[in-house]
């Protein structure tokens, strides 16, 4: 190299630069394009679920067979409503409350996981138990019942709760013999809120579950599970008994909260099995702009067991319709009795 004339060095450099460009010629990075037709949108949706949905193997869904079944229903002259209906039904085969198709006119969903079961919840009766002077701290509504039992209703984990809210609430309820945390009909929300709330009920770091994710397009391409720990809060922590009320509509982040609380020694679950929903959902879209939500990253309990289909309570009980007609919530009353027995 040192003996080459400068002209040849320049030529060599130029050839090197051109040679480096050659691999780039075939490397424009793009995704397979589907056209904005009923068939194109069907194929795009099927491919998104095929490559990114995380429960195909666990739920033993034959996604190729479903392609064959629903492709027959697609015609290129079908209208948007017809296409939406077919695609919605195809997604319902997954039996997943975290799978939705959103269009400007409608939202396709699968809600049988709670609609097929007793509701076990009555908002008007809850209001009776709360009374008129209950406290509201961010997403929390709480009061002290006549028997010195604290009652907390958390409607949705989408409503944020701060450490200040929790400090005030636990201070207010400090004299109670025990507390009831009612998360029935709480459809989920932010995992951070779930973790922040649960951290007030443990004094030590506790393994609560595992999380893993897809590493590729294959139905079985997963990472190793990563442990999830619950760290105790540095602020006020509740030391007495806790009863958590659940029903089939306790879903997603609520399912995660119930999973963490279930491990703690002072906590008892009362009510119905939770709805489940352990897959962290991602979002994608179709060529026509419709949005699709789907479970992408599964979470397991501390025993590495799936909780996608829900968590069983310690005390299984449904609301009695007769008592409900009298304005009595059977599940709350059961919880109060259990706390009295304990205290």
């Amino acid at each position: 190299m040192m003996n080459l004339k400068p002209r040849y060095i320049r030529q060599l450099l130029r050839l090197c630069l051109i040679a480096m460009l050659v691999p780039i010629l075939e490397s424009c990075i793009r995704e397979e394009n589907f056209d904005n037709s009923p068939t194109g949108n069907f194929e795009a949706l099927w491919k998104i679920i095929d490559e990114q949905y995380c429960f195909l193997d666990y739920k033993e869904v034959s996604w190729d067979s479903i392609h064959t079944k629903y492709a027959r229903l697609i015609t290129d002259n079908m209208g948007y409503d017809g296409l939406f209906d077919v695609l919605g039904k195809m997604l319902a085969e997954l039996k997943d409350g975290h799978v939705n198709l959103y269009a400007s006119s409608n939202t396709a969903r699968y809600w049988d996981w709670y609609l097929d079961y007793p509701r076990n919840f009555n908002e008007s009766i809850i209001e009776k138990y709360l009374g008129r002077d209950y406290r509201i701290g961010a997403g929390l509504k709480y009061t002290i019942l006549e028997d010195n039992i604290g009652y907390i209703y958390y409607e949705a984990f989408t409503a944020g709760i701060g450490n200040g809210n929790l400090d005030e609430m636990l201070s207010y309820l400090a004299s109670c013999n025990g507390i009831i945390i009612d998360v029935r009909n709480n459809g989920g929300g932010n995992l951070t809120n779930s973790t922040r709330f649960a951290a007030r009920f443990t004094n030590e770091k506790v393994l609560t579950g595992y999380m893993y994710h897809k590493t590729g397009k294959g139905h079985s391409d997963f990472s190793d599970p990563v442990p999830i720990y619950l760290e105790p809060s540095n602020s006020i922590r509740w030391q007495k008994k806790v009863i958590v009320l659940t029903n089939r509509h306790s879903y997603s982040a609520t399912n995660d909260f119930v999973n963490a609380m279930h491990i703690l020694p002072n906590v008892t679950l009362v009510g119905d099995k939770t709805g489940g929903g352990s897959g962290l959902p991602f979002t994608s879209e179709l060529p026509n702009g419709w949005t699709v939500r789907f479970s992408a990253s599964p979470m397991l309990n501390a025993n590495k067991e799936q909780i996608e289909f829900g968590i069983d309570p310690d005390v299984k009980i449904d609301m009695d319709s007769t008592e409900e007609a009298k304005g009595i919530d059977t599940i709350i009353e059961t919880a109060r009795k259990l706390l009295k027995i304990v205290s």
Partner: protein
Amino acid sequence: MNLCKASILLTGYLLLIGGNIEAQSTNSQKTEVQSTEASKAEVQHAKVHSTEVPGTETAGAETQNTEAQKEKLQDTVEQSERTRETEIKSIKAETTGTETQSTEAQGKKAQKTVVQDKKTQKAEVKETEAEVQSAVVEGKRAQKPEAQDTIIPGEAPEAKAQSIEDKVMQELRADPSARTRFITRSTMYGIGFSNVFDTYLSPQEYTGIDFRIARESMRMTRMAQGRLSLQNFFQADVSYTHNHVDNNNTIAGLMNWNYGLHYNFPITPNFKLLAGGLGDFNGGFVYNLRNNNNPASARAYINLDASGMAIWNLRIKTYPVTLRYQLNLPIMGVMFSPHYGQSYYEIFTLNNSGGVVQFTSLHNQPSLRQLLTLDFPVGQVKMRLAYIWDAQQSRVNGIKTHTYSHVFMVGFVKEIYLLRNKGKR
């Protein structure tokens, strides 16, 4: 053929053209050397007042002519001295008595006149000697065109000094120790088109408008006998894009900093090629306004780039312009990327960050940045028009991304000379 491949082929074509220009320049250099040798033979017969022929032959002729002038002047001085002395002697011989004093006074006056004449003539000799020296220096410069080569884009070496300031600047540029203190700095603002794609967020490509700002400085260094130039290039852009059916939007932003060295290969006094390497630092984001647990994608990557440049100073009639093309090709680096279906919650809240920083090279990050600039004077300022074709792509951890931007920019160019620190006394 899609736009991506077309631009890559265009890049290769431009590189080949650069080779053709170099071949032609080499041939013309040979012709110039031959004509210079021929004209040297004619120098001895050149006229004293010839000023039109540039280069070696004129300087040589002027040197010889000025030497003759010098000899002639010295002869004149000696002759006038001898004449003055003769006059003084004759005056002294002719005077008597009271006339002696006046004659002596006259003689002294004559002596003074002789002395003044000598001083004047000596001054003239010195001035002529100075002219000889400057003619010799100019002759040397003409013989070594690369000493006055375009060191910094925008300076045409053959421009004649119109004023003392221009003359000083030209001398500074020719001085190897001073030319490294020149910095060419530009600031540009631009608008263009962007195509943003990230399978972590959506399988659809989002297109829209791109706003960009860029700031660059270049200077010669003393390394490699003054052949290495330093480039510092920073750009930041923000784009607002929409999907194909225009019912969702994505906001993307990226900051890019390039810093590196280029080896200069002067081909002709007006054209040179540069080749070197750059550190390429990038940080940004893509944010999808509609997504849920995967709303945003972070961009963080560092590369070592191969970089090539071609700089051409030309004149359109008498109007000087500088054309520059630059290509930066990331060869190797590292990039942050979540895994295929991994959430940022898992990475940052659960601290599961294994494998999120990956090695990149041409096989998984085939990217290009191309820059075409045109510098031209407008009154007292120098303007720059630029076109940036920025193709950033990656295929890491099963996630595909690309950002293709075509941006047109306009700005100003300043040339700054750094004064030496004279704080020490």
